[in-house]
């Protein structure tokens, strides 16, 4: 369910190509963009986020929860800006796309 705060829905993202070719390389991920034919290498953080978005749409809040669960609360807390920056990059590369959380459209 999209997370609705008063005043507007939580934006969510999902991977553009759920069946995208990918190869796990230790804790990193190589991904082949079928539209641009470019190859991208994602570091562990990027790989974790992307793998979630391959399975389902998620908001920043949901992704942060996912990442923290994976890390078992080790290390520095993950900031929303970091996730935002990562999502912007993935969107730029054509790997993910924003989906509207607003069901009224």
């Amino acid at each position, binding site marked *: 369910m999209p997370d609705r705060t008063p005043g507007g829905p939580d934006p969510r993202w999902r991977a553009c190509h759920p069946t995208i*070719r990918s*190869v796990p*390389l*230790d804790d*990193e991920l*190589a991904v*082949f963009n*079928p539209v641009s*034919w470019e*190859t991208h*290498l994602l570091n562990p953080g990027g790989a974790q986020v992307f793998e979630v978005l391959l399975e389902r749409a998620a908001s920043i809040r949901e992704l942060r929860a996912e990442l923290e669960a994976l890390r078992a609360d080790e290390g520095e807390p993950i900031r929303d800006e970091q996730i935002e920056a990562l999502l912007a990059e993935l969107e730029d590369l054509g790997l993910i796309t924003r989906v509207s959380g607003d069901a009224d459209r």
Partner: protein
Amino acid sequence: MRIGDLATSVFDREMRGAGIALDFGLAKVRVRAEVPGFSEAFRFLYAHFPCEPPQGFFEITASLRRSRGLRRHVRPQVEFVVDGERPFEPFPSDTHVPLFEWGVNFCVARRCNHRLLLHAGAVARDGEAVLLPALPGTGKSTLTAALAARGFRLLSDEFGALRLSDGAVLPAPRPIALKNESIELMRRFSKDVALGPTFPKTRKGSVAHLAPAAESVARRHEPARPVLLVFPQFVRGAALAVEPVRRSRAFARLSTNAFNYELLGPAAFDAVGRLVQECNCYSLVYDDLDGAVDAIATLLARRGRRSHAGATSGH
């Protein structure tokens, strides 16, 4: 009957006439040449290859012709002609072998895009292949030659050709081009090396070719399974250093190294992904060839002792 068994005059006549058939595994070449000196050098370098009639289907049909231009009276030149086209400018006619080798490489890169072509040396032992992806100038040809001289089967010094269906390395044993100091180095490295004539004053300096050993030639149709990726870097005076390379880094280097990574798109991605997952990946800095050869032999042996199923990350 092998090329080296033919009488020089007979061989020369064939070369000038119907042409010589050369099957080097990855591809077959039909070559004709009318340039003095070429057949003799060719016969030495390709001595272990079987004689075959020049009929049938060939991936590459090429000829070395004397240039027809007016220059031919001042400075004789030789051209590489393939299917009625001249892909490059003529060479001086006494650098015929380097021109031939260059021309064949050029054709392979253009015509073998049903394989992933890494720019890499490749050798094998007991069916397992070591790939040495490297840029020109890193010493890969010399290192490949040294490995071959120490008993590894030569697969190629230029093209690590992978079959897309299963990732096997396909042999293409041909003369190894050595440049400048490497020529003397290899002469000292191994007394048994079969070095062809030296061609001075090519654009790359002096070039001489090392003939592939009989066994490498005989087994040119036997693919090998890649198990080891070693990125070599020759550094004068450096101590030997072997470091594991992260798989993602190896992937990145291979994708920029391969001749046709971009061209093959998803097939190349799959092939490089599989290669990196199945191989142990290392970088090797070296100054001394013996040390480098031993290091690679050790890495290969160590790889064999680990079970294949259990082998996960490089280290």
